[in-house]
C-alpha cells in the first residue's frame, strides 16, 4: 500500500472540517466513543445535527474560540492507500501554517464555497502550494447543495480558477463539485449531480499518480552519521555512512563523489539492519559503505561524478517569514540545510511577493510575519544544493534565530546569487 500525504486549505467556513470529518467517518476511522463525544458536544453547542467538524478540532483554546489555528495531522486508510492529512487553518495571518502543511505534502485539497467562488484566500493558498512545489491541486467546490447542484455555477468557478492557476507551477489541477455536509462526491459519486462525470474525491485521492513526482535521477545522499562501532570486535573495520536517500537511485558498485572533499570512490555495500540490499532509492534510510577509506563526516554529501549539485555560499531563495520580528537585510541567522548547520547573513531582500496579485514589491524594506519574499544569503560554509523545483530535499532549508532558537523561516532555493 502506498502513502499519500495531502494538505487541506480553505477560508473559514468553507467546510474544511466537515469535509475531513466526513472522510474519516465514511472511511470508518471514527470510533464510537469519539462519535459519542462529538454528539454530546454538538448537543451542548446547540447544533441541530452532529457536527462532524468537531472531530477534527484539536486543542482546548481553539475549541473555545471555535477556530483552528495550527496544523493538525489526521490519518485514514482505504484498502488502496494510506493517507496523512495536514489540516491547515484558514485564517489570513496563517500563511506559515499553510507553508508548514504543504512542506510534507504531495497534493493539496483547496475548498471553495460554491456560493462565493474563488476568493483572495483561495488564490493565496494556491500560490503557496505552487511555491512549495506541490504538483497536484484538487479544488473542491463545496456546498453545491446550496446552489441547487447547478452545473453552470460549477463550470463558471472552474473556469475562473483555471484562469488564475495558469500562472502557477502546478501542473495537475482537478475540480470536483461536492457537498461535504451531505457527502456528495466525497466517497460516492453524487446522485444529485449526474452531469459530473469525474471521480468522487476519495477515488481521485486513491488514484492520483504520485510516484513519478519523486526525483529518481539526481543521486543525492546527505550523510547523517558516520557509524563506527567500537565495542564489537568483529566489526572493527566497519565504517558506514548513515542517511536517507534524498533523490536518485544508488546501486552497489556505483562511482560516487563525496562533497565537499571531491574525493571519489565506489559503493562497496548498501546495508540495513535487515541485511544488505542492491540498490537504494527515496525515502529509504540506509547505511552506505565505500570501497576506499575517505574522510567523510555528517553534513557531507554523496553524489555522482557527472551529476553534482551546486556548491556555494551565495544563494538566492524564496522564504516565508514566520517570526513576529521582521526580517531586515543584515540579519545573521543559523541555517539548517539537509544534515548541515551553517550561519547565514541576509544580504538583500530582492522583493516581497504579494501572494494575492503575484506582484513583486521591490521597495519592501523588510519581511514581516507571514510574508513571502526573495532574499539573497551568504553562508559561512558552502552548501550542496539544487533548485527547490527540481529537488525538494536539497533545495529546502530553515532559518533559526540564534537568540530565541525559534524557527523563523522556511526557505526554497532558487539559484546562486551574485
Amino acid at each position, binding site marked *: 500500500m502506498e502513502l499519500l500525504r495531502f494538505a487541506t486549505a480553505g477560508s473559514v467556513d468553507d467546510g474544511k472540517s466537515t469535509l475531513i470529518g466526513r472522510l474519516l467517518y465514511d472511511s470508518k476511522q471514527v470510533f464510537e466513543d469519539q462519535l459519542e463525544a462529538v454528539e454530546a458536544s454538538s448537543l451542548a453547542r446547540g447544533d441541530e445535527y452532529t457536527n462532524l467538524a468537531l472531530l477534527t478540532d484539536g*486543542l482546548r483554546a481553539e475549541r473555545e474560540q471555535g477556530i483552528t489555528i495550527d496544523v493538525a495531522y489526521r490519518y485514514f486508510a482505504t484498502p488502496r492507500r494510506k493517507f496523512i492529512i495536514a489540516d491547515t487553518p484558514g485564517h489570513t495571518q496563517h500563511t506559515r501554517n499553510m507553508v*508548514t502543511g504543504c512542506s510534507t505534502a504531495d497534493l493539496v485539497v483547496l475548498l471553495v464555497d460554491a456560493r462565493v467562488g474563488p476568493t483572495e484566500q483561495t488564490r493565496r493558498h494556491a500560490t503557496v502550494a505552487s511555491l512549495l512545489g506541490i504538483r497536484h491541486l484538487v479544488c473542491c467546490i463545496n456546498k453545491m447543495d446550496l446552489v441547487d447542484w447547478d452545473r453552470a455555477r460549477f463550470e463558471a468557478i472552474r473556469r475562473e480558477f483555471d484562469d488564475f492557476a495558469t500562472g502557477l507551477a502546478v501542473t495537475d489541477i482537478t475540480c470536483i463539485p461536492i457537498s461535504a455536509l451531505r457527502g456528495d462526491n466525497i466517497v460516492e459519486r453524487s446522485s444529485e449531480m449526474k452531469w459530473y462525470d469525474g471521480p468522487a474525491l476519495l477515488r481521485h485521492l486513491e488514484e492520483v499518480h504520485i510516484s513519478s513526482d519523486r526525483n529518481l535521477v539526481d543521486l543525492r545522499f546527505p550523510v547523517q552519521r558516520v557509524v563506527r562501532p567500537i565495542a564489537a570486535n568483529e566489526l572493527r573495520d566497519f565504517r558506514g555512512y548513515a542517511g536517507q536517500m534524498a533523490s536518485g537511485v544508488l546501486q552497489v558498485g556505483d562511482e560516487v563523489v563525496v562533497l565537499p572533499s571531491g574525493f571519489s570512490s565506489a559503493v562497496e555495500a548498501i546495508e540495513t*539492519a535487515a541485511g544488505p540490499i542492491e*540498490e537504494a532509492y527515496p525515502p529509504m534510510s540506509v547505511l552506505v559503505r565505500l570501497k576506499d577509506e575517505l574522510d567523510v563526516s555528517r553534513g557531507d554529501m554523496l553524489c555522482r561524478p557527472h551529476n553534482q549539485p551546486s556548491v556555494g555560499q551565495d544563494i538566492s531563495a524564496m522564504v516565508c517569514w514566520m517570526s513576529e520580528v521582521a526580517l531586515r537585510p543584515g540579519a545573521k541567522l543559523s541555517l539548517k540545510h539537509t544534515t548541515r548547520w551553517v550561519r547565514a547573513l541576509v544580504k538583500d531582500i530582492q522583493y516581497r511577493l504579494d501572494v494575492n496579485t503575484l506582484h513583486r514589491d521591490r521597495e519592501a524594506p523588510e519581511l514581516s510575519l507571514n510574508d513571502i519574499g526573495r532574499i539573497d544569503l551568504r553562508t559561512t560554509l558552502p552548501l550542496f544544493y539544487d533548485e527547490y523545483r527540481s529537488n525538494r530535499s536539497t533545495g529546502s532549508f530553515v532559518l533559526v534565530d540564534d537568540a530565541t532558537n525559534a524557527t523563523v523561516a522556511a526557505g526554497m532555493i532558487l539559484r546562486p546569487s551574485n
Partner: protein
Amino acid sequence: MTTYRLSHLDSLEAEAIYIIREVVAEFEAPALLFSGGKDSAVLLHLAVKACWPQRLPFPLVHVDTGHNFPEVISYRDSQVERLKLRLVVGSVQEDIDRGSIVEHPTPGATRNRLQTFTLLRVLEEGGYDAVFGGGRRDEEKARAKERIFSLRDEFGQWNPRAQRPELWNVYNTRHRSGEHFRVFPLSNWTELDIWQYVEQESVPLPEIYFAHRRPVFRRSGMLLALGPFTQPREGHSEEEVFEASVRYRTVGDMTCTAAVESAAVTPIEIITETALSRVSERGATRTDDRFSEAAMEDRKREGYF
C-alpha cells in the same frame, strides 16, 4: 522493472529511522522512554535498526508506577538482557516513600498523574536533552498538533501555543540548557500500522497483548482484571467476577487499564479485530482519559509523556 516504490510501512520506518539518527547526531544525551507497551516496543525496535550495527548509544528510561503488570516488567527485563541495553528505572513508590509526592488515599487509586513527577525527576537527574516517546498523533486530539520534535521548558512543560513550525524533514534541534525535547518518531503511525509492523518485523511484545483467560469483572462498561489493585467494590453486585478470554490494547497502570474480550492470539488476528473495531484505543481501555475531553491536554502541559 522495479518501480522504486516503498510500501506505507517501509516509508514510515524510513522516516522514523531518519528521525532517530538526527537525534543521535545532534543531541548529547538522548534517552528512550520505555513503558513496555507496543508503541515503545516498536520504537525500541526502530532505534535498534537506526543505530545498527552499533549497540544502542542511549539508555531506556522506565517509570515504574509500582502498579505495572508483572508480565510487562519481565518483558522489559528480557529486552534489556537480549539487546544488552542500559536501563534507568524511576520508581513512583520511592518518591511516595520519600514524601516527594502524596498518593491519593483511596486504595488502588491510579498513579498516572503521580508518574509525571517521577518522570521529570529521572529526566533531570539523567540530564537528558532528547527523550524519545512512542506517542502517535492518531491517539488523541491534543496530540494531532504536536510536533515530532516537541520542545519542553525547564519544568518539562509543553506549550502548545509556542510550538515551532516543523518544515519538511529539517528538524530544528536548538534548545537552551535545561530545556529538552520529546521526540516522537511514531507520530505518523496509526494503531493499525503498529500492529502491521509488529507482524512484519516479528517485534516481541508482552504476552498480555494476546488473548488469554483470566478472571475479570465489569465496571462502568469496562473489563478490569481481578488483581492486587482491582477488586469488585462491596455493594456493587454488578461487579461480578467471571473468567473470560481477554487481551490488552494498552498496558498502563494496572489500576486503570481495562481489557477487551478477544480471541486474538497473533498479530494478524489482532489486525483483523482492530480493523473492525469501533471503539478507539484510549476510549476502550483507559479509565483515566474518560474524565474529560481535555484531560490529556492538561496532563501533557504538566509534562506527562
